[in-house]
């Protein structure tokens, strides 16, 4: 049925390899004019990478991109937008202290003889475009005075300054908008469709996709797994395809019930800049021998919650009892000494020191244990490193090699191994399975279950439903900073998790209380 219209833009057999991971494997993607082409997948499925390739930010390792039947290879976003392909990022790229009109023409000024800016012509053009978008925005207003939704409209207006906008890529455009602004955006998208512009729309909000989308493409683990017209499908179908039949199977002992308490968190809050809370009065417990999942969409506040617990956000408030000890203002090095460790979400940015060897990375946290008379005991340290490498099945040829010589999965094992060497009691793992292959994932989940079996407590922050459900004994769900569910046993299923993860979106209401879901 799709063959009836010819796609305006096509990606053919795109493969993208990053050091440590393969983000896309032979993905093909068709974009149709005058339609909303939706792209969905879990975090790390490769959506952003594909977008970046289409918009000229990244170059594919293999594969080709065609625009109106002609092969194109964009050097940068500027090149892409001059051919009519533009992208609007989740985080807006703007100059807050410049006027709207100057933002629209930044880097693309209309000028006489290439020297003087022709402000009159710019003002005229800006008015024209804003009028075409039917938006009452004053081009002379300072950018920072606009609401987020309006700022986004300016970004869209900017892309429409191009001679002919053919493809507009929108990466989670609604993630920071209010309800009213979302409605306005949808009207705008309808208008753009009528003008024959192809929209590529990325979102995690499934209801939104059903409402506004025309064609849906689903990515999973860097591969295209499904493609359909929106009228033929429903949310359940999407979830099924997104999650797939995970190859990860973990033996999980039957839930023991609530045993000895290891960690008690009460009323944790992290204020957000500009009002509200990123972490909104969160309370929960962690028991010995338990793997506790924290599920939620991107931006739900999961990472911020665990970062607050380890002491990375001094402005966080709330109380915590860690293994019987009351912790007032957590500080990272003290928390580690008390036995709490964090495997951070972004292992490249936060977890590893790229300039150091595998061995030095592993011993980074535990080095005080191997110090005598101010000197590092190399032998003791080395044998501990070797032991961890063996136990965790890290595939290395030599621990003295640079950490960057390892694959993503093995790098992740090193980050976890670092925590093991620190002799932790509470392991917090933020997205430990992101961007690594299935084999390494299984290893890591097995390691988590082993920790629990040894009487430690594991907090697993994840956004892949199947993984969370197969590894965890109990799952907390966060939505918009609030804890919206605490599920265990039979209540722990995909539907409840998905529902709870959207429970606090777009509502100013008080959070659902624990266990109130279903």
């Amino acid at each position, binding site marked *: 049925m799709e063959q009836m219209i010819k796609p305006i833009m096509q990606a053919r057999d795109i493969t993208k390899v990053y*050091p440590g991971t393969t983000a896309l494997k032979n993905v093909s993607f068709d974009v149709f004019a005058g339609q909303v082409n939706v792209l969905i997948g879990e975090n790390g499925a490769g959506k952003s990478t594909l977008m970046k390739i289409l918009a000229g930010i990244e170059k594919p390792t293999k594969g080709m991109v065609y625009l109106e039947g002609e092969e194109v290879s964009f050097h940068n976003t500027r090149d892409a937008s001059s051919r009519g392909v533009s992208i609007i990022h989740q985080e807006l790229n703007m100059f807050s202290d410049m006027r709207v009109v100057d933002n629209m023409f930044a880097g693309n000024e209309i000028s006489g003889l290439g020297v003087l800016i022709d402000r009159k012509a710019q003002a005229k053009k800006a008015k024209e475009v804003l009028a075409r978008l039917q938006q009452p925005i004053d081009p002379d207003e300072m950018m920072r005075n606009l609401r987020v939704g309006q700022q986004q409209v300016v970004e869209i207006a900017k892309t429409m300054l191009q001679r002919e906008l053919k493809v507009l890529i929108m990466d989670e455009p609604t993630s920071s908008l209010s309800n009213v602004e979302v409605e306005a955006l949808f009207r705008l998208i309808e208008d753009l469709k009528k003008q024959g512009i192809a929209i590529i729309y990325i979102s995690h909000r499934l209801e939104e996709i059903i409402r506004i989308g025309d064609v849906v493409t689903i990515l999973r683990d860097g591969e295209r797994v499904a493609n359909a017209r929106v009228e033929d499908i429903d949310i359940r179908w999407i979830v099924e395809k997104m999650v797939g039949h995970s190859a990860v199977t973990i033996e999980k002992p039957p839930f023991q019930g609530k045993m000895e308490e290891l960690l008690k968190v009460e009323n944790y809050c992290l204020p957000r800049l500009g009002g509200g809370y990123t972490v909104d009065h969160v309370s929960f417990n962690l028991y010995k021998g338990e793997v506790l999942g924290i599920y939620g969409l991107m931006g739900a506040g999961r990472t911020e919650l665990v970062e607050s617990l380890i002491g990375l956000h001094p402005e966080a408030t709330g109380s915590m009892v860690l293994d019987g000890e009351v912790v007032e203002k957590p500080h990272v090095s003290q928390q580690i000494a008390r036995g709490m460790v964090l495997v951070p979400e972004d292992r490249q940015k936060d*977890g590893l*020191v790229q*300039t150091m060897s595998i061995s*030095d990375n592993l011993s980074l*946290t535990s080095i005080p244990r191997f110090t005598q008379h101010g000197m*590092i005991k190399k032998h003791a340290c080395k044998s501990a490193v070797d032991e961890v490498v063996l136990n965790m099945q890290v595939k290395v040829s030599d621990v003295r090699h640079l950490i960057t010589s390892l694959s993503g999965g093995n790098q992740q094992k090193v980050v976890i191994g670092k925590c093991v060497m*620190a002799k932790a009691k509470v392991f917090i793992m933020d997205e430990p399975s992101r961007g690594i292959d299935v084999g390494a994932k299984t290893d890591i989940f097995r390691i988590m279950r082993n920790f629990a079996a040894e009487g430690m407590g594991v907090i697993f922050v994840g956004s892949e439903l199947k993984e969370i459900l197969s590894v965890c004994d109990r799952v907390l769900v966060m939505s918009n900073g609030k804890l919206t569910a605490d599920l265990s046993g039979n209540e722990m299923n995909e539907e409840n998790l998905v529902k709870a993860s959207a429970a606090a979106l777009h509502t100013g209401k008080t959070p659902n209380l624990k266990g109130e879901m279903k």
Partner: protein
Amino acid sequence: MTKSTNRRADTSLGLILLKGRTFIALALLVVYFSFRAPNFTEFSSIILLIKHASLYGLLAIGMTLVILTGGIDLSVGAVVGLSAMIAGGLMTEGIRLPYVAGTIYPNVPLILLLVCLLAVIIGFCSGTLIAKVKVPAFIATLGAMYIGRGFAMLRSGGATFPNLFGSEKLGNLGFDVIGSGTLWGIPYIIIIFIAVSLVAAFITKKTPLGNQIYAVGGNERAAIISGIKTTRVKLFVYMFSAFCAALAGIIKASELRAAHPATGESWEMIAISSVVLGGTSMSGGVGSVGGTIIGVLVITVLNDGMIMMGVSTFWQMVIKGVVIIAAVIIDLVQKDLQNKAALAARIK
């Protein structure tokens, strides 16, 4: 298949040459100057060259630790000048204690202690600004540079403290020995430099602190999450750098037997150049004390050799500038080749 394997073998041979480039450059320079510059290979000129290298080397060693954490210390030249002036002042004018004992003249060891202590306090202040207040290192130490130089000038109203021999009567004889004395024929300056280098090498290679210096420079956020007290690490490196600068200032004043407030002007640039030539990354986390020693030798050999050859000072500046930029470009080429080789290996 064979083709690509060959190419990789080629790059790895090239990489070996690239990695030892500073050492090769040093060897080539020495050979070149021994043919072209008269007296270059004479024992006395070699000792003189090593003495020069030691003075700059002290600063460069301190700077190495700072740059390894991803910082920079522009204040070392000013600390050299201030230390020289404080030492000179204590020698000539002593400490005035109007209500208690009039003026007392501390002996030489006490002077050394006081000067080093002052420098370490300056380092502590810069370090606090950088680690606690989060002022960028460039700005904090730029400010410290002006303040330090200003106080060096203020100490004497811009004048020199001459004839720092001390006197028997004041009990401060022997200040000039530091800069001119020898042990078994080796000048004290060189011995001090070797001692400081060994300490710095020991710290970076053998102690947890050294490990943490590399970690902070390699990825500060990962270091924080690993429980490293990054504030302490940063404080230490700026205090150590200032301490090295104080030693250099004392040595220079002792060698000249005079303290001038402009002592050490622009030496921070020589120190930074040496560190960069020695292969330490300006973004932190990569480098070594040993590399810096070779770097400072390259700079000094180039400098002294050109002087002996009679190259004009103006051309000397141009050549030094070209050498530094070339060194960094080669560094970038090496990293690029390494990355490409790593990526190629992964796609295979």
